[in-house]
């Protein structure tokens, strides 16, 4: 964070103390993430990181650009499939595999985006949903995905020929790095000149057009980047769990990502990750009990839509701002 002279956007004025507080929080978070695998089960942590990245990717589109995509699982699952296939069948390394997954997801994003971007609001959501369902059936039928069975036993491999990723903790740090890169990318975009224009489009599209911006081009760019990042999350998940399945491309998965982002707080950098942490933890612990997970998630969803549209981070900000 070197832009000391710029005005940090947002309602909160960046007082020095707030800034110190932010840095402190960031440092604490970093430390927590670094020591977490010593305390908690690394695979569980990796799952959180993958979904946090996925939700953040969606948030880049929904929270910062104001576009609700109900088909982001296509990119998440697409990335997972491409990576799994390349790593398992074509025998490429994990890094190359992930890059291919990200590239594939970006191409899918561009293709779907070109059609979907023509509509707005609810029509945009419907279009992405239907197109992702089209993609779902393509994945179901494609010869390389093994339909219902998925691509199983994907080897994690060795990173750069040095790090043995079969070890959970090594893999964890690899995933953490990927996550950090993904989050940095999002942060970079939303606090860039490009991000300013995107924010302007979200706040008042007509006005942005009247300033001479070709808003569709910006929307398509963000859509593609968001798709690529969702692909990054999916690719990484495929390596962590060594599997890529239809679940990853189903529309329910898209819904889950929206829930995470909404629950955590749309349009905030940390919100979606917080939402993902809550949901994944809940799924993890409820799975072992007789409590119906979907009902609980549904209730959380309804409550957050009705009462906490600003999400966890929003509620937190509200309390921290209160005198």
């Amino acid at each position, binding site marked *: 964070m070197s832009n000391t002279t710029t005005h940090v956007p947002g309602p909160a004025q960046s007082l020095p103390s707030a800034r110190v507080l932010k840095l402190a929080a960031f440092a604490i978070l970093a430390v927590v993430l670094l020591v977490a695998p010593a305390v908690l*089960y690394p695979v569980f942590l990796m*799952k959180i990181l993958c979904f946090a990245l996925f939700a953040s990717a969606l948030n880049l589109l929904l929270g910062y650009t104001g576009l609700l995509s109900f088909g982001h699982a296509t990119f998440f699952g697409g990335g997972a499939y491409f990576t799994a296939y390349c790593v398992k069948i074509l025998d490429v390394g994990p890094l190359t595999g992930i890059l291919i997954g990200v590239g594939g997801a970006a191409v899918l994003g561009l293709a779907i985006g070109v059609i979907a971007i023509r509509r707005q609001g609810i029509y945009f959501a419907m279009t992405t949903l239907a197109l992702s369902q089209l993609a779902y059936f393509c994945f179901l039928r494609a010869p390389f995905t093994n339909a219902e*069975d998925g691509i*199983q036993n994907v080897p994690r491999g060795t990173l750069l020929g040095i790090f043995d990723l079969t070890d959970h903790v090594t893999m964890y740090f690899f995933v953490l790095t990927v996550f950090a890169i993904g989050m940095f990318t999002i942060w970079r975009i939303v606090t860039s000149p490009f991000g300013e224009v995107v924010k302007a489009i979200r706040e008042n599209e007509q006005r942005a057009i009247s300033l001479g911006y070709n808003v569709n081009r910006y929307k398509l760019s963000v859509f593609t980047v968001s798709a690529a990042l969702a692909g990054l999350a999916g690719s990484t998940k495929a390596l962590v769990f060594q*599997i890529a399945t239809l679940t990853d491309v189903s529309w329910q998965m898209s819904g889950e990502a929206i829930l995470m982002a909404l629950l955590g707080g749309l349009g905030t950098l940390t919100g979606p990750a917080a939402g993902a942490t809550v949901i994944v933890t809940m799924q*993890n612990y409820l799975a*072992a009990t007789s409590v119906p997970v979907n009902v609980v998630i549904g209730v959380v969803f309804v409550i957050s839509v009705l009462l906490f549209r600003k999400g966890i981070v929003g509620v937190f900000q509200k309390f921290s701002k209160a005198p």
Partner: protein
Amino acid sequence: MSTLSKLTSVAFATCLATSQTVFAAEDPVKILVLDDMRGIFSGNGGPNTLLAVQMAVEDFDTSSLGTTVEVLSADHQNKADVGSSLAQRFIDEQGVDAITFGGSSAVGLAVQGRAAESKVITMTTGGYAPNFVGDQCSPYGTQWAPTTRELARGVAGTLVDQGLKDWYFITADYVFGRALSTDAADAVVDAGGGMKGETLHPLNTNDMASALLAAQASGADVVGLANAGSDTETAIKQARSFGVGDKLAALLFFSNNAQALTLDVAQGIRVSTSFYWNMNDTTTAWAERFMERNGGQVPTMGHANAYAATTHYLKSVAAAKSQDAAEVTAMMHSLPVDAGILENASIQENGRVVYDMLLAEVKAPSESTGPTDLYKILSRIDGSDFFLSAAESGCPLVN
């Protein structure tokens, strides 16, 4: 990062080591029942599998083990990613010694792969793909459920012998379904019959009408259903309304399917199974105890296999005086399997459990004496040369 990684690895390892030393004195035998608890296959596995495993533990004399037995359970929701991560978690965090598995074979194979890497015993009680003891076999795995091959041959062979030679298949479009139809087609051809065609459908199809019409148009004698669970039920239900009902052969069918469909709809369907609840005195006594505890749900072959598998596993742990996967597996292979629930059972080198099978027919409502009286047994099939031998299985562990 690598230094840090090592550091935390060490820290993590220390944690584990500490916890192991503390509890080593009374390390219980932990069995994980990993099944589809609420999904489309939960009827033939699910909560009743858990019950069967618990009954097996209760019925077992645990004093011979020198420790307690703990039964854990989890729902994999028929999602391979959920299943494999749950298995991994229970292995890493709980230190489970054995996993009994039921539900979608796709999930099961992922779980067995994961368990094999971590040297944990798997007992497939409700997964029917041949791959469990074939190309993806595990040194610590046993498959108690029959495979698509036996299910298909049991029904197909018999029907062709009765003169129903021309077959049409309605097949679930994934590995299990395709294996089932391929095996059945082989059986039909072996027995002198022929193929009229096949329609593939995705998992969880709610309308089989177009497939049934295609089957009807082909003029086949028999419409073979190479699918499972609710897909099979849908097909049977709809076949009745299109006048194809009398031509059906369900290649994988459970007593719970018959209960769900009602005898009125399901009557006359030929099924191949390893178990029927009142096939002998032992099973009748066990099934009655079982039904007392679950409100009258008839145990399926999945439940029976879970009971038999758990019993055999515990016996082997006691005999081996160890919880080590390799030692227990060796003991499982060498000890005879108790007769009763399974008849003439033994375990092959690739983990395949071999036993006698039954060919049964769903009773007409008029023949049935009550809600649990579902099948009449037509014949018994000697298991000894009915199952694929270890050598033919393609299991890489068998030389």
